[in-house]
């Protein structure tokens, strides 16, 4: 049964929510990347507790959206995957924060 438009008004901003960020694992990854300048794959994996494959797929999605850059380099002949949030990613993350705060604040107790 459809909710009448007037009752649904408070939730309208949710329709425009960024679904790339809205996924909990990606949200956590972006949150960590937003508080550091850059970090490698392992650091983010340790902090988030995600498996390597899982984190890899989420990063591919975030990179596809232009929210993070992924750069490979070698340090002491060991590969290191460097991750950094982009300007676009930071803006999207802030916008997501604002939207969620607004939606949650506007909801009745």
């Amino acid at each position, binding site marked *: 049964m459809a909710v009448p438009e007037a009752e649904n008004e408070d939730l309208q901003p949710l329709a425009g929510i960024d679904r790339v960020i809205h996924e909990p694992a990606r949200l956590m990854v972006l949150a*960590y990347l937003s508080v550091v300048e850059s*970090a490698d794959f392992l650091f983010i994996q340790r*902090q988030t507790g995600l498996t390597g494959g899982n984190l890899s797929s989420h990063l591919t999605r975030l990179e596809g959206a232009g929210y993070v850059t992924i750069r490979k380099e070698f340090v002491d002949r060991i590969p290191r995957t460097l991750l950094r949030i982009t300007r676009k990613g930071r803006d999207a993350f802030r916008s997501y924060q604002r939207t969620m705060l607004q939606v949650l604040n506007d909801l009745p107790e």
Partner: protein
Amino acid sequence: MTTTADLKDFERRAWRSVFADGLWDIALGCVFLGTGLTMSLSLSRGWGYLFYAAIVALGIAALLIGKRRITIPRLGWVRFGPKGQKRRRNVIIVLAVGLILTAALIPLTVLARSNLPRVHGPAGTLPVLRILSSLAVSALVWAVLSVMAAFWEFPRLYAHALIIAGSFFAVEMLSRGWPLIAGSAIVLAIGVGSLIRFLKAYPKPAPEAPDGGSGS
């Protein structure tokens, strides 16, 4: 995860993980162990400086090599932004102020060794200047290490500040180096304990997937 406070929590967690390996505790313990041993061994001035420099170098080497060979392969690599650099700058300022104040205290401690003015107490006569200089030195050590702990958000350093400050008080009062050796041994033991816990909590990832193979 929608508030600034929560983001600060993420930042704090990421920052504190840098100290989880206990290597800073070990380096700090080595610096004070060097001071205590140099005081106790009654070496000639030249050999004393050399011995002290060797122990401090050992601590710094443990920190640098440990970070590279133990921490980064297990915990990963991170660079903190302007906030991290500000923290580092503040700690350097605190250390510099601490060194200047220590230099200013040297005349007081030298004068205190002469045991000139004494007061009568229940346990006999007490050298006033020695008590004052001991209190001043230990308060300074405590203040410098505590301010460092606050800037660095490194809670264990508060405990180290108390241990080392107490040791310095005993060193000044007794004119012996062993209390500082004992104090720094406790700090070293805490560092080694943290390192063992870190090694258990963060095993080295399999070599075939050092970066999880993020296919990008």
